[in-house]
C-alpha cells in the first residue's frame, strides 16, 4: 500500500517537475556541475593560504597594534602621536578593504558568485558581512580622528574613542577567527 503511494507521489513529482532531484540545491562546490547542469568553471584550485588571506590577517592585526598605540597616546596626552597612529589604523583598514575588493573582482570574474553552490554563498556571506563591518569601522575611526583634531577628547573624557576602539578590536578578532576556521581548522 505504502509502496504504491510512494510510486504515485514520485510519478506526480516527475509530471510536475521533470528532472527534479530531492537534494539541497546549493550543495555543489566550485568545479562541480552547477544547478543548470553546466559546470560554471573548471579553473579552480586551492588558494594559497599564505597569500591574500594571511596578508589580510596581518594587515588587520597590524591595525590592532597601531590602534593600541593610539589608545596609549591618548591616555598619555600625546596628541600628535595619537593622530598619527589613528591615521595608520585607518589606512590599514582601507588597504584591507582594497585587497578584499580586488579578490572579489577576481572571484566574480572567474565565476564564483553567491549562486555558485554552498562554497560561493558561504564565502561571500562570511567575508562580505565582515567587510561591511570593517567599512563601518573605518568610517567610525575617521569620525573619531576628526573629533581628535577638533580636540573633543582629553585624558578623562574619551568614551567615544574607547567604544570605537573596542569595536575595531572585535572586528579584528572576528577576522582572526574566520582565518583560523576557514583556512586552518
Amino acid at each position, binding site marked *: 500500500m505504502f509502496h504504491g503511494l510512494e510510486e504515485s507521489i514520485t510519478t506526480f513529482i516527475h509530471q510536475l517537475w521533470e528532472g527534479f532531484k530531492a537534494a539541497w540545491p546549493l550543495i555543489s562546490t566550485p568545479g562541480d556541475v552547477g544547478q543548470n547542469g553546466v559546470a560554471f568553471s573548471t579553473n*579552480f584550485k586551492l588558494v594559497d593560504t599564505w597569500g591574500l588571506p594571511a596578508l589580510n590577517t596581518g594587515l588587520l592585526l597590524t591595525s590592532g597594534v597601531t590602534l593600541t598605540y593610539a589608545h596609549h597616546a591618548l591616555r598619555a596626552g600625546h596628541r600628535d602621536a595619537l593622530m598619527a597612529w589613528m591615521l595608520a589604523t585607518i589606512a590599514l583598514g582601507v588597504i584591507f578593504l582594497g585587497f578584499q575588493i580586488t579578490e572579489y573582482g577576481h572571484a566574480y570574474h572567474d565565476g564564483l558568485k553567491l549562486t555558485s553552490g554552498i562554497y560561493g554563498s558561504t564565502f561571500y556571506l562570511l567575508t562580505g558581512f565582515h567587510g561591511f563591518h570593517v567599512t563601518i569601522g573605518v568610517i567610525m575611526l575617521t569620525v573619531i580622528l576628526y573629533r581628535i583634531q577638533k580636540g573633543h577628547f582629553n585624558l578623562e573624557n574619551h568614551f567615544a574613542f574607547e567604544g570605537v576602539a*573596542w569595536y575595531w578590536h572585535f572586528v579584528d578578532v572576528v577576522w*582572526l577567527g574566520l582565518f583560523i576556521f576557514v583556512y586552518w581548522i
Partner: protein
Amino acid sequence: MNLFVIAVLVLIFIFLGSAVIGLLKGGKAGSDRMFKALRMRIILSVLLFAFLLLAGALGWIEPNGFNLLPTQ
C-alpha cells in the same frame, strides 16, 4: 593542536569581554582595565597568528580543504 588554537582564541575573546566591562564601568579604573585587556588581546592575537604561520611552515598543521578559490 586544533584545541590549543581554539583555546587561545577563546582566551582572546575573554580579554575582549574584560575590555568591554572596563569600558562600561568607566572612570580611570575602567579605562585602565580596558586598555590592559585590549593590549593583552592584541599580543595574544599576533602570537597566535605567528604560531599558525610557523606551525603551517613546519608542517605541524595543514590548511584544511575548504579553502577553494578561483585562480587565474
